[in-house]
């Protein structure tokens, strides 16, 4: 078994719209090592959520269409799996949490019903459950009991005080942070290998965000989880992740260990992004935005998609898509400034 739990190679995704074909992902390369917390950063429309949704194959098709690439999980291409095998795979190996903890819980059911369901669903699809392969299963009552115990255990794991009592409450009786904890509990129901967290703290207050990030970090240690954290917030990345990939307009443009990336950003977009966040050292008037707008992906700029906004643009950038250039160690960048052409 290789080091890499997840390996996305050259992923191309299109959406067919009235205006034309939007090339939402144009060759995404991303590897996630086992046990790592990888941050996928970028601004609205850069394709970070689409990349994350491509792993569990949750992109609606049509209008979406994957035109090239592979999503290798433990060396196995998920895009080639039949649908029922994919369902089992999701239940066994993947956990997902999303931005809005409110809309992802059904207000008509108690937390217990939803969490027990999640556990049962996972058990029903999990080939690892003892006896499963013999065709032997415990009685429905027995399974419900076990699932309930597991649900209470999960409530405790995600740090909900009085979990055994609060599990009988409805979602509206929980605060935003507590709801997100419930969703994390659901995602953990099947002891997944990979947790995909799509903007998990964006809807939360900053003190609650700190609680949730700390929880995720402790879960990583406790269960040897691997996390793909999608966020637009560089501060969250700096605090939580070990490795970072920066996306722009449908491509990963820079990958590095987190300290290296913030200390030594190479891609002009990464540099711009970091400079755009006010820190305690930023003086009045010292903040720099990135001029221009994100490109229209239906008619994306040829070559490097950042070239119309790039302060260091060269002729080659307008024509050739930059390949991966290695800076040092595990730091690589997709930019012609670091290629042989420059």
């Amino acid at each position, binding site marked *: 078994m290789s080091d890499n739990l997840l390996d996305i190679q050259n992923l191309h995704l299109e959406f067919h719209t009235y205006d034309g074909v939007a090339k939402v992902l144009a060759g995404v390369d991303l590897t996630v090592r086992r046990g790592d917390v990888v941050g996928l950063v970028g601004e609205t429309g850069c394709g970070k959520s689409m990349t994350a949704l491509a792993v569990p194959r949750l992109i609606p098709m049509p209008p979406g269409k994957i035109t090239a690439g592979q999503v290798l999980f433990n060396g196995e291409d998920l895009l080639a799996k039949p649908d029922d095998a994919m369902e089992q795979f999701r239940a066994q190996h993947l956990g997902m949490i999303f931005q809005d903890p409110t809309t992802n819980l059904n207000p008509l059911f108690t937390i217990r019903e939803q969490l027990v369901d999640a556990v049962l669903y996972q058990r029903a699809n999990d080939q690892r459950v003892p006896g499963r392969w013999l065709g032997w299963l415990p009685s429905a009552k027995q399974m419900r009991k076990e699932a309930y115990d597991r649900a209470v255990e999960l409530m405790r794991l995600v740090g909900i005080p009085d979990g055994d009592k609060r599990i009988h409450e409805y979602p509206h009786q929980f605060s935003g942070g507590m709801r997100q904890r419930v969703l994390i509990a659901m995602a953990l129901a099947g002891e997944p290998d990979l947790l995909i967290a799509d903007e998990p703290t964006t809807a939360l207050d900053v003190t609650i965000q700190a609680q949730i990030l700390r929880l995720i970090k402790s879960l990583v240690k406790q269960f040897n989880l691997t996390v793909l954290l999608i966020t637009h917030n560089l501060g969250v990345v700096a605090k939580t992740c070990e490795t970072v990939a920066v996306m722009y307009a449908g491509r990963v443009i820079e990958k590095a260990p987190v300290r290296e990336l913030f200390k030594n950003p190479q891609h002009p977009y990464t540099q711009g992004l970091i400079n755009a966040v006010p820190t305690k050292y930023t003086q009045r008037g010292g*903040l720099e935005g990135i001029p221009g707008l994100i490109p229209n992906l239906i008619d994306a700029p040829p070559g490097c998609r950042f070239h119309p906004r790039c302060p260091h643009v060269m002729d080659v950038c307008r024509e050739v898509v930059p390949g991966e250039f290695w800076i040092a160690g595990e730091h690589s960048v997709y930019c012609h400034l670091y290629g042989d052409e420059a």
Partner: protein
Amino acid sequence: MPSDALLEVRNLKKYFPVHGGLLNRKVGDFKAVDDVSFIVPRGKTLGLVGESGSGKTTIGKCITRLIRPTDGEILFNGVDLTKLNNRDMRKMRSEIQMIYQAPAASLNGRMTVGQIVGEPLLLHEKLKGAAARQRVLELLHVVGLKEEHYYRYPHEFSGGQQQRIGIARALAVQPSFLVLDEPTSALDVSVQAQILNLLQDLQDRFNLTYLFISHDLGVVRYVCDEVALLYLGKIVEVADVQTIFEEPKHPYTQALISAIPEPDPTDEKEEIILKGDLSLSKPDVGCPFAPRCHAAKVSECDTIEPPLVDTDGGHRVACHLHPEAV
């Protein structure tokens, strides 16, 4: 009233009735804003910071009279806005304008940019036709939009540009005071930086005074001159921006500042993780923050609500651990 104060809020209260029971009778009050007082000095930016449910947006809406306060005074240039009748308040609106959190939703999708920005000119100066068009084009230029955007509709713009349209509309009547309600929280960071810079330029250029409502302490630190922190409808600490960030006194302020996710992985500041969240309802007696407080408690915390007192030279704190300077 200090001579340099453009806006002074005194003992502002906004209670929302809570209905309940079989007959849906009023059973109590939800105190969204509870006895809040502050001053916004002319030409400066006061940051109003708090988490959701702290009452910061309610204060902004009281000042712009989108809602009526329950009690208290809002003095603008010495005039109490709460006492104005609707007609006088409508005139006063040329002085006080607001920028909204959701740029797309704050623009009428059925009007062109020209009509949106021109509407306040029509309402306040009866300006129409070529003269209005000329003024609108100037405003578009000021906020960094182009002439050809005049006939476009809001949905054709990106979030940052939509916010520029909103700013142009607010500036049309040449106000002296802007309430900025989370003006960049819906925007990407690179765009946020552009808008923050634009707001600072405009402030310098037109001598504007800002009330900057935000939950993002990183942005507040960059933009504001003074900061007031709200917790459950009360101000817990006020000071100039440097003092707040370097010597925060209230335990809540300390926790908030420690929780700012700095874009710096080497940042080793110790993070204070607060217990629970705002759903821990406000205790009936004592300090509202006491149930979540991490600091060493004194017995008064659970019995007496701490008043907001001046601890030294304008640094006001509502905490029993920081008594009034003698």
